C-alpha cells in the first residue's frame, strides 16, 4: 500500500497529498454546495463562480496526472501499474463526481443564464489545459478566472438582482474561454507523441521553478545597487533578510518604492474607479480595500517561496555572519516576513474606517468587518509560519493551498458587496477554517522554535 501511494504521489505530484485534496475541496465544495442548495444572497452566479474554481482544480489534477500515468503504464511498464491505475481511477472518479457531475447536475437544475455554465466550463477547461501551457499564460489565465469569479458578485450586486446579469459579464466569460483556447499549445496534440511526458516535465518545471524568473517580476534588476537597496541605514538582521528575500520585501530606494506603489495604485485605482463607475462610490471603496489586502498577502507570501530552495537564500542566510543566535534569527525572520505585509494591511484599516464613516455603516457591520480583517491577518500569518517551518517544496502545498483557498472564500463572501457580512449560520461556518489556521499557527511556530536554528533543513 505504501509503495502504491508512493508511486501515485510521484505521478500526481502535490495534487495527491491528502491535505491538499481534503482542505481545498472542503473549502470550495462546501461553500459552493451550501450556496447552491441552501440558497443565500450570492445566488446562482456566486455558487457558479466557486464551483468554477472547484472544477478548475479538478481539471488541473486530471490534466496533470493522467498523461504521465498513462505514459508510465504504457511505455515504461511501471511495476504495479494496474493497482496504480485502479487507485487513480477512484481518485479521478471522486474528482469527476465533485468537480463535474455535482456542479453539472446543479447547473441543469438551476441555470438561469449562460454565465454560470460559462464559468464552470471555463474553470474545468482551464484546469485541464494548465499542465500544457507556458507559465506566463497560466498566470494570465488564473488572473482572468479569479477576476471573472470575483467580478461576478460585484457585477450581480450592481445589477440589483440575484440571478440575471448584464451582457458585459457574458462577454467576459466568453473572453476567458477564448483566451484559454488561444493560449493552448496545439502542436503537441497534433503531433501525438511524447505529449504526456512533456506535460509532466512542464508540471515539474513549474513546481520547482527557481527564483530567477520570479525575481525579475518586481526586482528591477536594471537599477543599480545604489538605487535598488538603501545603504545608508544600519543593517539590522531583519533588514538583511528582507534584502535576501528580494522585492517586494527588499528595502528599496524611494524611487523604486514609489514605482511599486504607483503600480499598485494603478491596479487598485482602476478596480475602484470601475466599480464606482458601474455603481457607486461606496462600492468602489470596498472593492479597492479588498484588492489592497489581496496584494498585501498574496504578493508577499508568494515571494517567501525563495526560502524553500536548498541552494538559495536559506543556505546563504544560515551561513551569513551577523544574524545572531537561533532565537535572534527567528525573531528577525518573523519581523522581516510579517512586517511589510502587516503594514500594508494596517494601512487598509483607515481606508475601511473612512468608507464606513461615509456610508454610515451600522456597528454590527463594522464589527463584522473588523473580524473579517482579523481573519485575513490570521490566515496570512499562519501561511507565513507554515512556509518558514516547512522547508521542502512539496510538503508546503497542502497547507498553503488550503490557507489561500480559505482566504479567497472569505474574501469573496465576507468582503464582497454584501455589507462585509454574510447572514445566517453559513457565515459563521466559514470561520471554522480560521480557527484551524490559529491551531496551525501554533503548531508551526512551535516547530520552528524546536529547530537548532530556523534556517536549517529538516
Amino acid at each position, binding site marked *: 500500500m505504501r509503495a502504491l501511494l508512493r508511486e501515485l504521489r510521484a505521478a500526481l505530484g502535490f495534487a495527491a497529498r491528502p491535505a491538499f485534496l481534503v482542505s481545498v475541496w472542503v473549502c470550495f465544495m462546501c461553500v459552493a454546495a451550501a450556496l447552491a442548495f441552501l440558497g443565500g444572497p450570492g445566488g446562482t452566479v456566486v455558487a457558479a463562480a466557486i464551483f468554477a474554481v472547484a472544477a478548475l482544480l479538478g481539471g488541473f489534477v486530471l490534466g496533470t496526472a493522467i498523461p504521465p500515468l498513462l505514459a508510465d503504464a504504457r511505455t515504461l511498464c511501471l511495476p504495479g501499474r494496474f493497482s496504480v491505475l485502479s487507485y487513480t481511477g477512484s481518485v479521478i472518479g471522486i474528482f469527476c463526481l465533485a468537480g463535474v457531475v455535482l456542479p453539472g447536475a446543479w447547473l441543469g437544475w438551476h441555470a438561469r443564464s449562460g454565465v454560470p455554465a460559462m464559468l464552470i466550463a471555463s474553470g474545468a477547461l482551464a484546469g485541464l489545459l494548465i499542465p500544457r501551457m507556458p507559465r506566463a499564460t497560466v498566470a494570465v489565465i488564473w488572473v482572468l478566472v479569479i477576476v471573472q469569479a470575483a467580478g461576478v458578485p460585484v457585477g450581480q450586486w450592481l445589477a440589483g438582482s440575484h440571478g440575471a446579469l448584464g451582457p458585459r459579464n457574458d462577454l467576459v466569460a466568453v473572453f476567458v474561454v477564448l483566451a484559454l483556447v488561444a493560449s493552448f499549445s496545439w502542436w503537441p496534440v497534433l503531433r501525438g507523441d511524447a505529449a504526456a511526458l512533456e506535460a509532466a516535465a512542464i508540471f515539474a518545471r513549474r513546481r520547482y521553478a527557481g527564483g530567477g524568473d520570479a525575481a525579475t517580476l518586481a526586482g528591477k534588476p536594471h537599477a543599480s545597487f545604489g538605487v535598488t537597496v538603501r545603504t545608508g541605514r544600519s543593517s539590522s538582521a531583519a533588514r538583511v533578510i528582507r534584502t535576501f528575500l528580494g522585492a517586494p520585501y527588499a528595502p528599496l530606494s524611494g524611487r523604486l518604492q514609489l514605482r511599486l506603489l504607483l503600480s499598485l495604485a494603478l491596479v487598485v485605482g482602476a478596480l475602484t474607479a470601475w466599480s464606482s463607475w458601474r455603481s457607486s462610490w461606496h462600492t468602489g471603496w470596498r472593492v479597492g480595500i479588498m484588492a489592497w489586502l489581496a496584494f498585501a498577502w498574496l504578493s508577499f507570501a508568494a515571494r517567501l517561496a525563495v526560502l524553500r530552495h536548498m541552494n538559495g537564500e*536559506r543556505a546563504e542566510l544560515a551561513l551569513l555572519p551577523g544574524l545572531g543566535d537561533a532565537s535572534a534569527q527567528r525573531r528577525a525572520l518573523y519581523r522581516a516576513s510579517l512586517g511589510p505585509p502587516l503594514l500594508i494591511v494596517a494601512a487598509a484599516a483607515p481606508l475601511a474606517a473612512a468608507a464606513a464613516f461615509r456610508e454610515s455603516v451600522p456597528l454590527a457591520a463594522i464589527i463584522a468587518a473588523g473580524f473579517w480583517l482579523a481573519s485575513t491577518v490570521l490566515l496570512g500569518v499562519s501561511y507565513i509560519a507554515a512556509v518558514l517551518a516547512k522547508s521542502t517544496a512539496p510538503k508546503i502545498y497542502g497547507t498553503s493551498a488550503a490557507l489561500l483557498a480559505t482566504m479567497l472564500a472569505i474574501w469573496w463572501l465576507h468582503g464582497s458587496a454584501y455589507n462585509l457580512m454574510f447572514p445566517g449560520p453559513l457565515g459563521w461556518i466559514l470561520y471554522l477554517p480560521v480557527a484551524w489556521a490559529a491551531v496551525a499557527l501554533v503548531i508551526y511556530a512551535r516547530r520552528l522554535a524546536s529547530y537548532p*536554528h530556523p534556517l536549517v533543513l529538516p
Partner: protein
Amino acid sequence: MNAVIAARDPALPVQCENLSKRYDTRTVLQDLSLAIPAGAVLGLIGRNGAGKSTLIRMLLGLQLPDAGVAHVFGEPSLRLSDAVKRRLGYVPQQPDALAWMRVGDMLDFVGRMYPKWDVAFVQRALQRWQLAPAQPLAKLSPGERQRVALIRALAVTPDLLVLDEPAAALDPVARRELLREIALRAGESGTTVLFSTNIVSDLERVASHVAFLHDSRLVLNTPLDELRDRYARLVIAVASVARIPQRLPGELSRRRRPDGSCAIVVARAPHEPWPALGGDTRLDLLGLEDLFIEVTE
C-alpha cells in the same frame, strides 16, 4: 585523517561523528565519521545520489542529521557563531540566491558582512572571468552563476572552503582556473578545502586527500600520495576462484567478471605485504579512476 574520532578537536576545521540520514525509506548516510586536518584539500567523490551534497549540508549545519554530530572549528555546526561563519566560504551545487540583484551589487552587499572581504580579488576575478558587474544575476548562465558564487566564497578569504561540485557547470578553462585558485589558496594561505566532484582528474590535480562515498558510508579515506602504495586489485583466474577465502584482510570490494575470474580490491597498511594467494593471481596497482570504479561499481 582518522576515520574514528575520539574527542572534538577545535583545531580541526571539520569533523563529524556517526552522521546518519534517511530520506523516507532510503538511507543516504549511515554512521559516517570524518575529520579533515587543517590545510588539507579533501576531494569527496561518489556516484550520483551517493549523498555528497547531503553530507556537506550536514557538516555545515544546513540540514538536520537523523543521528550524529558535526563540528566546524570545534563548534557544533548547527550552532555556529559569527566568528566561525566569517571563516567559511561555501558554494552550493546550483547557487541561486539573490538572483534579483546585479553581480556587483550582490558582491558589494554580501561583502559588508565579512571583515576580511577581499575587494581587489573580486575585481580581479570579475575581470579574469569576464563577468560584468552590471549584469543581473538572473540573466547569467548556470556556469557564470557558479563563477560568481566562487568569487563570493573566495573573497571571504576563508579558512575553510566548501565547494559542492563546483566544476559541474564550468567550461574546461574556467575549471582549470578554479583548480589553480584552490591549489593557490591551500598552498599559500593554508586554506582547508572540502570539495565534492564527479571528475576524477580534478581530484588528481589538487586534492591532498580523497574520500569515496558509497552505499551511505565512506569506503575509502586516505591521502592521495598513499593511494598507489596502499590499494591494489587482485585478479584471480577462473581455476583459482574456488580456493580463495570468503574475505581477505583489507578487502574493499569483490566482483565476478564476465569471464568467470574474480577481481578483489584490497587495502594494506603502510609497509605491509599484499595478501599472497598464489596460483593464477595477478596484482594490479590502481589509478584513482580505476579504484573508484572497482569500489563503487
